[in-house]
């Protein structure tokens, strides 16, 4: 299959993106964000989840959570390009919300057949926030690695711990990956179900929350089985290109904010009789930030479009987009702080919110070296022993 020239970014997608951009600009400015999440800088403070639920309610009202839900399940069923554009805006705002977590859950659930999945997609379309749970203690990026076990046929019992669960404090439902003798299945569990113990992590990123979740003999009925057998791992694998692309879009949006903020600063701050941007030691790396962001952005839209229109290349292009997105996150965070000088090193400067969000995105889904190693496997075959 071939991709359309415009990446599938037509009038509808543009309107969605422009509306989102305006909404976030008006309602989720960075100074508001800083007041919301950065009130207590003490690294040893008690863990709290800071977010503005009213923004999330409006997001649901505007239908962002239905974008990736198929029309058959009551969603808008828009293309991945639209979703990438939304994620880019969410990243630009460094928005604390269950949006990315819910989108990622959506992308996995919609790869599953059956009534349970259909039901969940309907709930997502109505605005119920969900998050994926199942990463193991080692932080493995492989869909088949999980420390949660599922035992029993029909009614199932979950045990073990899921680590690095994103934005669970903002979610109502867990989509749990658990291993049985038949493979990795997928189960839906309410955050307040019996036997579910959510332990909040103290993390760097102030724009998210994170937890590890202990499952102690959590009983799951057949109405909670989204995918049995190895269907959970299969759905995760199918959804991986889309998840990688969405996360890359978040990094691109955040990178754009870092670039713009840095450009504004170096165009204002004077040293040695010139604005900082005059000096090539600043100017050229700032240009390199732009170049990397542009490459990542182009690769993101290419990957998004491939998921819809060139599925045989989707994984390849998604790994490219995510690898470059991670490199953007790393380089832009680094140069933005450096070029802000001392002020960029302070808590009061907003930069750190983005640096921390970027770092989180970089390590949570497979860093750029991992993406490139996996890309090499796709293009060159596995490494011979």
């Amino acid at each position: 299959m071939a991709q359309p020239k415009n990446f599938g970014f037509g009038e509808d997608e543009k309107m969605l993106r422009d509306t989102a951009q305006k909404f976030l600009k008006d309602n989720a400015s960075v100074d508001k964000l800083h007041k919301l999440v950065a009130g207590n800088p003490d690294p040893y403070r008690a863990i709290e989840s800071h977010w503005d639920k009213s923004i999330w309610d409006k997001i649901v009202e505007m239908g962002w959570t239905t974008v990736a839900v198929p029309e058959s399940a009551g969603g808008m069923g828009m293309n991945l390009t639209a979703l990438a554009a939304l994620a880019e805006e969410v990243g630009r705002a460094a928005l604390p919300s269950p949006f990315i977590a819910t989108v990622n859950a959506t992308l996995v659930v919609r790869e599953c057949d059956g009534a349970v999945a259909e039901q969940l997609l309907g709930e997502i379309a109505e605005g119920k926030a969900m998050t994926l749970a199942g990463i193991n203690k080692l932080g493995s990026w492989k869909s088949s690695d999980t420390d949660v076990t599922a035992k029993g046929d029909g009614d199932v019992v979950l045990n073990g711990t899921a680590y690095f669960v994103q934005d669970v404090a903002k979610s109502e439902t867990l989509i749990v990956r658990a291993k049985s003798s038949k493979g990795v299945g997928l189960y839906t569990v309410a955050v307040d179900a019996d036997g579910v113990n959510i332990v909040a992590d103290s993390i760097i990123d102030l724009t998210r929350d994170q937890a590890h979740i202990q499952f102690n003999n959590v009983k799951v009925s057949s109405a909670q089985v989204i995918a049995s057998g190895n269907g959970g791992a299969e759905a995760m694998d199918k959804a991986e290109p889309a998840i990688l692309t969405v996360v890359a879009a978040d990094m691109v949006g955040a990178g754009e904010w870092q670039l713009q903020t840095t450009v504004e600063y170096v165009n204002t701050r004077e040293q040695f009789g010139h604005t900082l941007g005059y000096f090539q030691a600043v100017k050229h790396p700032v240009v390199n930030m732009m170049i990397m962001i542009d490459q990542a952005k182009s690769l993101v839209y290419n990957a998004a479009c491939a998921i819809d229109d060139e599925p045989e290349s989707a994984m390849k292009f998604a790994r490219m987009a995510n690898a470059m997105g991670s490199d953007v996150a790393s380089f832009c965070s680094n140069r933005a702080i450096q070029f802000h000088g001392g002020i960029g090193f302070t808590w009061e400067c907003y930069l750190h919110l983005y640096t921390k969000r970027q770092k989180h995105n970089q390590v949570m889904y497979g860093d750029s070296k991992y993406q490139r190693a996996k890309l090499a496997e796709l293009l060159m075959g596995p490494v011979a022993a």
Partner: protein
Amino acid sequence: MSAASRKESPEQAEFRVHCRQWLSENTPEKATVRLPESPVEIMTNEQMDYLRSWQKSAYEGGLIGCDYPKSQGGGGMTNCQPIANQEMQAAGVPMLPNVIGLGMGAPTIHYHAQDALKERLLPLLFSAENIWCQGFSEPGAGSDLANVQTFAEKVGDKWVINGHKVWTSLAHFADWMIILVRTDKEDKHNGLSYFVVPIKAALGKGVTVRPLIKITGETGFNEVLFDNLEITDDYRLDEVGNGWKVAMTTLLHERGAGQLVTPSAGRGVVKKESAGDAYSLMGLAKEFARDGKLASDDPVIREEIMKAIIRQEGSKQDARRSRVSSLCDHPMRLPLQTKLLMTEIRQDYAALALEIQGPASSLYLGDDNAPSAGAWPLAYMNSYGMTIAAGASEVQRNILGERILGLAKSK
């Protein structure tokens, strides 16, 4: 029906059919001489004759100048040159030798010359009957174009040119040169004017062409000296003092950022494993060993190849995105990156290729056992020409920082 062709205009679709048909019937005969890597490395008359004859044929087939008006020898079509380029590249036909004329001369003449001059020069340019070169750089004006010192003095109704141009590719074959000269010594930017100059006709009569040798050992570019060369005012493009503006048209098209797409074909005789593409490093790595295994099984080599491929793919998708205005903030932000990125990426993966080849990368063009006939060491060395010429990478970054991001000018 593919998505790509779905968006084609009827004219484009019909033209694509024509191109395929014509190319299938007019495949040029295989060259009996070794062809160079690129047109600016054409060294011998035999090479030039072969390629010139092919360009003439392609022009007669309607595959060159497609979007120029018919009065200027063009095809009078709209957005059809990209179609011809795609089909020529797919057919693997040889390169077009008059690359400076097609890429820089033609659009500049089109936008700035008087009608009579356009109608006289362009058909011969398209057919490669006239080869063109370009005279911007000078010994004292490398990246600093506004520092051009070659002087054109108005004497009666003639202009008398004196000065020294360097790095002029193809000058040793050229009939004509597009030239940027100073006509006012007081005003740096408004003191420049732009002409076309008949070079070959004036050899020994005011013009001297001296070949320079590159670090590769190849020729391909030259010094051109002007000693009281007289030309008529007819050869002026745009107004006196507007040379800088005209030069910007030239540079815009050189960087692939202009309206008129440059005709371009394939490279014909170049083999699959040739030094032209980051993807080709994957195959290359299968031919060489490192520490007892294939280089293609060395994860560090794989990582570096992937980096190169991702950057190359990023540039390709940048080019695609640059045509989707709703995904671009500033219309020039992506086009102005093209030359910078492609040249730096090529330099980096050529260096990587030499590492992959290991000790065998010591073997050069003249060696019977050189892998790919020495194409990678050649590409590596030639890559420096690309990051220096036509606005060094440093200048490109200044332009991007200043024009796109609004950073203070570095001068």
